């Protein structure tokens, strides 16, 4: 089992398209889930959907989240806090651009890397 990847965008189209690009790289070797849009399907993010996506992509090695703009990050942090105790410490948000970060993180994860290594690889993209 490899580290799972979750993509959280304001837009379902971006999240789905990013997930397609990840699948093209890593096939089914990485647990992958995405969510995008507010509870009514408009642009936005949705804590309930983020929790569901984390559950879908769950791996005992942990789950790395890739997010787009501010609300996606804030809602993802909120979702992580609402996780059961035994899962909370195994979910992280990568500070990386969503598309490039997701593809790189998943590629790293597909080789059996740890959660920390997956994050480090994704975050190499970020200006420090």
């Amino acid at each position: 089992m490899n580290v799972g990847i979750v993509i959280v965008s304001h837009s379902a189209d971006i999240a789905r398209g990013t997930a397609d690009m990840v699948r093209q790289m890593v096939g089914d070797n990485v647990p992958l889930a995405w969510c995008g849009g507010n509870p009514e399907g408009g642009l936005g993010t949705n804590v309930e959907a983020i929790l569901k996506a984390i559950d879908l992509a769950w791996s005992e090695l942990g789950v790395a989240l890739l997010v787009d703009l501010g609300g996606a990050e804030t809602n993802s942090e909120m979702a992580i806090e609402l996780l059961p105790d035994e899962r909370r410490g195994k979910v992280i948000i990568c500070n990386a651009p969503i598309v490039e970060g997701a593809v790189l993180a998943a590629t790293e994860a597909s080789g059996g890397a740890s959660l920390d290594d997956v994050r480090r690889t994704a975050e190499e993209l970020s200006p420090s």
Partner: protein
Amino acid sequence: MMPVTELHLRALIDTVATRVIRHADQLTALDAAIGDGDHGINMQRGLEAVLADIDGLAAKPLPDALKAIGLILVMKIGGASGPLYGTLLMTLGRELPDSPDRAALATAFGAAVQAVKARGKSEVGAKTMLDVLAPVLQTLEAGGDDLPARARAQADESAAATVPMKATRGRASFLGDRSIGHMDPGARSSALMIAAICDVLEGRTSR
């Protein structure tokens, strides 16, 4: 201080939610000017979900009701204001006793404002809801006569004071100097809620 009864709590929930929902178009217009234009509709979605459960919420002790309302906002709003208002209310619920006096309210509200700062990774002066919450906290801490009236005035004044500010946090910060000259929508929704709470504390339950 008098205990918070089911009747008080129902009036509080109804007045606050209805007040904000009535201003949804205004909040969305403020957000359209400097953000993504969904603040009013998002708040409306969250608060309508709260009103749909008002019977169950009003029957709870005050702290439990606040925690439950916070969680509804987190789940239903769909934007950053969900976790921000949700964190504010859930922290208040954790910190407040069943029947708080002013000092207990000030202490709990102080913790809640700190929690919002942490959630939003923000501080006073970034043109956000904190620019209303923090001055109102100071009013509450100082106490004195006519507290609801002064808290309401402080909230309104503080929301207006966000107009000349430059946003450094949230979507409006993308605009840089162009965020100057508009009231922050989160500051406005915070002021609306505080005014509605003050109205209820003064015995007025008008929406």
